[in-house]
């Protein structure tokens, strides 16, 4: 419950944060104008702000965003389908879980994105390479969290299902899966986040696709204000994605 007093104490720090941000931009603008910061290295914040219109109208940043979003959607779907299925398999076959869970955890710690030159050879310089890298990097958390969610289902719920003589598939659909859903979603959220990070990263590295390629292109053109604006745009997309998935996660937690 948020009281009037709470709201008051929350808005103060938010205002402080925003004011500091504006203050930093104003200070950078002033320092560039007086020549303390080299304008050929850091563009004027006002020029960055103005170039937002240019990247939207002339450079088609929204089209590029949709391209990246489509890749993220494809990778996310693969992560959701394969990650949850493999997680369920590991949950159902305890011996497989014991044999493989540490390997999956180790994969999560490995810099999987570095495999991109290999995928360039196998799949070519196209969206499939990017989607596969996103899929691979998002897979380990989805598998691990699915196993964790299903394993931590309360014993009493499983016993209730048994007392109703539910078949194994009914037990899964009506008891196990709904109970594990919030934890599974945490894994999917992490997986999607890793997928998005790696998708934009590989787009940047191989100079193909949507937003990542856009940043690389602008850097190669040495269009600094537009490059900074494009980077801000990528940050905004990440923030939007973070907030959306966080909200869904909270909602699932409440529904549970």
């Amino acid at each position, binding site marked *: 419950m948020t009281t009037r007093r709470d709201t008051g104490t929350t808005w103060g720090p938010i205002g402080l*944060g925003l004011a500091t941000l504006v203050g930093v931009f104003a200070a950078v603008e002033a320092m560039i104008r007086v020549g303390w910061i080299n304008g050929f290295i850091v563009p004027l914040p006002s020029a960055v702000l103005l170039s937002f219109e240019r990247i939207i109208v002339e450079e088609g940043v929204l089209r590029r965003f949709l391209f990246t979003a489509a890749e993220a959607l494809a990778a996310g779907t693969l992560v959701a389908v394969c990650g949850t299925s493999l997680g369920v398999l590991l949950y159902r076959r*305890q011996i497989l*879980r014991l044999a493989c869970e540490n390997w999956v955890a180790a994969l999560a710690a490995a810099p999987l994105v*570095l495999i991109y030159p290999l995928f360039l*050879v196998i799949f070519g310089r196209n969206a499939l390479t990017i989607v596969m890298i996103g899929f691979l990097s998002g897979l380990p958390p989805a598998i691990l969290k699915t196993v964790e969610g299903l394993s931590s289902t309360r014993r009493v719920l499983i016993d209730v299902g048994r007392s109703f003589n539910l078949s194994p598939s009914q037990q899964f659909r009506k008891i196990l899966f709904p109970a594990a859903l919030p934890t599974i979603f945490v894994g999917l959220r992490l997986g999607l986040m890793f997928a*998005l990070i790696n998708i934009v990263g590989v787009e940047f590295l191989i100079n193909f696709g949507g937003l990542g390629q856009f940043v690389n292109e602008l850097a190669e053109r040495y269009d600094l204000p537009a490059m900074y604006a494009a980077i801000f745009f990528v940050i905004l997309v990440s*923030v939007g994605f973070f907030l959306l998935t966080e909200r869904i996660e909270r909602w699932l937690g409440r529904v549970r």
Partner: protein
Amino acid sequence: MARSSSMSAVAHFGVGRVARVRMAIVVVLLALWEAVAMSGWLFRDVVPRLEKIGRALVTLLAKPDLYANLGATASEVGVSIVIGGIAGVAVGLLLGGNRTLGKAFEPYLHYLGPTPKIIFFPIMIMWFGVGGGSKIAMGAISCFFPMAISTAVGMREIDAVLVRVGKSFRAGVGQMVTKIYLPAMRPAMLTGLRLGLGVAIIGVLLAETKLSNRGLGYMVIQSYTRFDIAEMYALLIVVFLLAIAANALVSRLGALRRGGA
């Protein structure tokens, strides 16, 4: 608790059976690999024979070049962890210790944390040049966010009794940090270090693949350019094993500390 349940499950199945299943999975995967390599379904050399990868691995491990590049990458990752880690701990202490500052600035850490850091690489090149500086900067900004967030969370979770004890002894700011805050936050900071190490390694390696003339990332992209796929596999095996070992080492350090505490 999870560890103990996993250990009891291993005891239930028997260590030998789990090892046999692992062995069977490895054998099946290797057999599948060899079958694909011999089938000719993919372009020649895209999936080389295991024997060829093995030979490439042995040759690679005998090359002094590997160790020079490994040294370059390791030093870049090391320096980036020191810079990003110290900055992250300082910011985390500040935001975790002050509610107003935490509410004002911590959301920005959470928002910027999941941003793909590699897009900052052009900026880092302009600020720090094309040499090791830009790679260290990439590693440092990658490492900074998990360290800062973990430290801020750890700071807020410090038992209030410990803080009161420190204040009742009239401890100064430096003493509070070294005697109360840092020891109490060790688990959270080690988690941050483990996460930070992982992303710093990724940041440095990716930066090396994009623009560099040394380091393991540079070696990977060079083998791609030469179409020496067997060497690329060998390099990826080495890099993955090293990254996993580094991560396991930090995790083990955390477990030891917890055990010793």
